[in-house]
């Protein structure tokens, strides 16, 4: 019952999916290294960043409204000559206020999808895309292909000023992709899209990233979107970078800071499809040789691609509220996933308790009521079972995203 | 003994005569009691304006044609049309002193004159040049000014080496030039008329008389004009090279 299957535009997606799957083992190029050490003072906020970021695929940028995400992208893009300090990419100095060095925006080969689209009002949809395509020489993508991927075929001769909000965003991203830059910056590119279009676009973006080996920085307010698309997360808060970590770790760190609804973020290996049961089995490999692999089931992955998915890695989210704890092995329940685990931390909050558990060295987070915590007399080191429904295992593309629904 | 003036007396005067008129009017008897306004413009402009109701009392034209037209159009007081001076033309260069008209003989550069089709001084220049058989030679090198004042400025700025200008312009600015003998061109008779719509005909008449007065006519000579009686006369302060022929 995947949305993609129901969609009438699925052929476009399958085209690119056939060539390069969303979860295909990426043929990694050397990561791009962004060295940032600058300050940019506004009236109410000083953006002050000192951080090296190594971008191998898509790095997410997460932070509150007004925290400075767009400004950070503008500096990297070369639109803020006023920034004091240094910015360099892969060892090349992009700007350095001390040495009065400044490589112009158009020379940086960096693409930027603006938060406010900024389509050229004098050009049609097609001409806007052609604008980006004309000025580069790689030509790995054609305008026709990108039009199809972003479902803009029907609108290609339309005046861009008359497009709907979501249509504008798609044109803007298509235009930036066609310029095939060395680094692509995306500023909330899908905020005006409905959920199903958004998940299609995310999948396409991810596939293109891998096909072109194009590193990206992706700003979003949605962690589930970021978890699906990014392999690393940068957290921005009040003008500073407060955290840079691989995506799962970063999300877990946000858990303990109480910044979002706590969740377990992990990547699992696809083991087999069980069409009769409507499930796909993933394995949580044993990290110690002594313990055995655990199985985790989720609703079966889309049929057309499923066979070739075997043994690939799938990014998954399980919300802490979806995981329950049982002292005995659960029976007679529709809940398919239960793993033996041991409690490592119990954090009591005002209204609930956040329990960190380990199963095969993988951390899981369970959020339970204070009442349950009391009743079950949980203590650290207790051996328990964690249980969660197959439906609780979320992967942005292959099962329905629950977020934003 | 004069009735109190309600409006100033407006004298419309051709631009080239305006400086001269100003000098003359400086000696107007009881000039403090009379409010006179001098309005100068190109003769053609003034003519058009009078034709369309301009509130002028006296009109000093740089030619005789416009006053005649006004007379035919019955826009002037009967018998007020008088010649008040004759204009003279002179060859002039602002770059160097000239020896005589013969300097033009083998000259192939630019020569400034007023527009022969519209300006009386231009027409006179054309006649003189024709008379001197120089017209075919200079015809294609002419810089023609809208009026004689423009021609004067063009020569004065040294942008044109030679020009045929009004002698009055030279006299008033103390420049040296070669006067072209009056017999080489039809007299440039400058006429004045009193406008019919004037409510101060008496005063206008008074000024007209004043300009035609003997002593003022004498003054005109110093200002580079020929007095009205002089036309059959041979000029006195002769600087023209008479060996020209």
């Amino acid at each position, binding site marked *: 019952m995947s949305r993609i299957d129901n969609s009438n535009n699925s052929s476009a997606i399958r085209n690119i999916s056939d060539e390069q799957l969303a979860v295909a083992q990426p043929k990694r190029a050397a990561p791009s290294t962004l060295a940032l050490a600058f300050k940019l003072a506004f009236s109410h906020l000083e953006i002050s960043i000192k951080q090296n970021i190594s971008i191998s695929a898509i790095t997410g940028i997460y932070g509150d409204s007004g925290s400075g995400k767009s400004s950070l992208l503008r500096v990297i893009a070369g639109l803020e000559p006023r920034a004091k300090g240094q910015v360099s990419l892969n060892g090349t100095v992009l700007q350095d206020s001390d040495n009065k060095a400044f490589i112009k925006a158009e020379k940086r080969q960096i693409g930027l999808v603006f938060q406010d689209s900024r389509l050229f009002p004098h050009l049609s949809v097609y001409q806007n895309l052609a604008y980006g395509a004309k000025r580069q020489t790689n030509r790995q993508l054609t305008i026709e292909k990108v039009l199809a991927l972003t479902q803009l075929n029907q609108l290609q001769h339309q005046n861009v000023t008359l497009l709907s909000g979501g249509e504008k965003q798609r044109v803007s991203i298509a235009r930036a992709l066609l310029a095939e830059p060395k680094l692509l910056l995306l500023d909330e590119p899908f905020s005006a899209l409905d959920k199903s279009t958004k998940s299609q676009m995310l999948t396409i973006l991810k596939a293109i990233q891998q096909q072109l080996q194009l590193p990206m920085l992706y700003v979003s307010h949605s962690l589930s979107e970021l978890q699906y698309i990014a392999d690393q997360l940068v957290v921005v808060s009040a003008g500073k970078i407060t955290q840079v970590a691989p995506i799962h770790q970063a999300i877990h760190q946000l858990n303990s800071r109480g910044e979002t609804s706590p969740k377990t973020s992990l990547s699992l290996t696809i083991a087999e499809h069980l069409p009769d049961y409507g499930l796909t089995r993933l394995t949580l490999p044993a990290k110690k040789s002594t313990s055995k692999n655990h199985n985790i089931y989720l609703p079966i992955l889309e049929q057309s691609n499923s066979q070739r998915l075997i043994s690939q890695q799938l990014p998954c989210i399980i919300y802490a509220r979806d995981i329950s704890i049982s002292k005995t092995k659960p029976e007679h329940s529709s809940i398919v996933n239960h793993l033996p685990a041991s409690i490592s931390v119990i954090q009591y909050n005002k209204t609930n308790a956040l329990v960190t558990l380990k199963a095969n060295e993988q951390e899981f987070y369970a959020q339970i009521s204070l009442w349950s915590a009391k009743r079950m007399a949980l203590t650290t080191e207790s051996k328990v079972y964690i249980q969660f429904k197959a439906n609780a295992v979320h992967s942005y593309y292959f099962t329905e995203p629950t977020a934003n629904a | 003994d004069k009735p109190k003036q309600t409006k100033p007396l407006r004298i419309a005067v051709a631009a080239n005569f305006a*400086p001269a008129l100003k000098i003359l009017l400086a000696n107007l008897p009881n000039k403090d009691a009379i409010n006179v306004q001098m*309005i*100068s413009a190109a003769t053609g402009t003034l003519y058009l304006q009078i034709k369309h109701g301009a509130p002028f009392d006296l009109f000093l034209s740089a030619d005789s044609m416009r006053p005649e037209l006004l007379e035919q159009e019955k826009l002037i007081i009967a018998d007020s049309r008088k010649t008040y001076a004759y204009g003279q033309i002179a060859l002039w260069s602002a770059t160097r002193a000239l020896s005589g008209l013969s300097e033009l003989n083998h000259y192939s550069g630019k020569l400034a004159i007023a527009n022969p089709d519209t300006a009386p001084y231009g027409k006179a220049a054309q006649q003189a040049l024709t008379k001197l058989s120089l017209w075919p030679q200079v015809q294609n090198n002419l810089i023609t000014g809208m009026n004689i004042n423009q021609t004067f400025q063009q020569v004065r700025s040294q942008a044109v080496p030679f020009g045929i200008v009004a002698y009055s312009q030279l006299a008033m600015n103390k420049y040296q030039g070669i006067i072209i003998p009056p017999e080489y061109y039809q007299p440039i008779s400058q006429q004045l008329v009193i406008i019919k719509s004037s409510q101060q005909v008496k005063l206008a008449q008074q000024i007209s008389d004043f300009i035609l007065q003997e002593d003022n006519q004498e003054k005109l000579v110093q200002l580079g004009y020929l007095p009205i009686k002089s036309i059959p006369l041979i000029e006195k302060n002769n600087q023209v090279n008479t060996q020209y022929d």
Partner: protein
Amino acid sequence: MTDISADLLALITTLKMAAVTTVILLIIGTPMAWYLAKWQSRFKVFFEAVVALPLVLPPTVLGFYLLLAFSPTSLPGQLWQSATGSQLAFSFSAIVIGSVLYSLPFVVQPLQKAFEQLGDHHLEAAAMLGAGPIDRFFSVVLPLTKASFITATALGFAHTVGEFGVVLMIGGNIPGETRVLSIALFDHVEAFNYANAHLLSAGLLIASLILLSLVYLLGNNFNKKQQGTVKL
């Protein structure tokens, strides 16, 4: 009357004429520009061209035709006379009307382009906040096109000050009424008063420079706030 005081009188007349003309130009030019900017029709270009036409005729020729029109024997001249009781040609009103016609394109065209570039977005937003047409004009259109209004005002005013042919022809150079600075300046040159002419030119230039600088200073507040990071 000395030359200086005559020039002063001309200066006053000039300022009066230019000020009145500019005010009239803004009053009639603004709605014209708006109409031309928002009107969607094939005939629009024709009217745009008509507005620009006064430019094509040399001022003296334009003045000639206006003189024909304003003369007491022509219909417009007669209508004016019966309406106001005084003659149109050679009056202050005449030179104002002439200047308005002559300077119209300099006011209408910059405003029209500004209105066209403005688009409907902000107007729609203002309407949704309850602002009616007049209100929208003063609260949104005017401040957003302020720079163009200043250009229009400056061009219109300066062009009127420097105007010569039309004013001379239909005004008749009457001191205190239609004798303006540009004519006075011309007269000085014609009368070989070069010293006066130079002085007056220099004075006019410096005064205009100061005036225009002040006007443009007004128009620059808004731009200062812009970011301006990518220069061309």
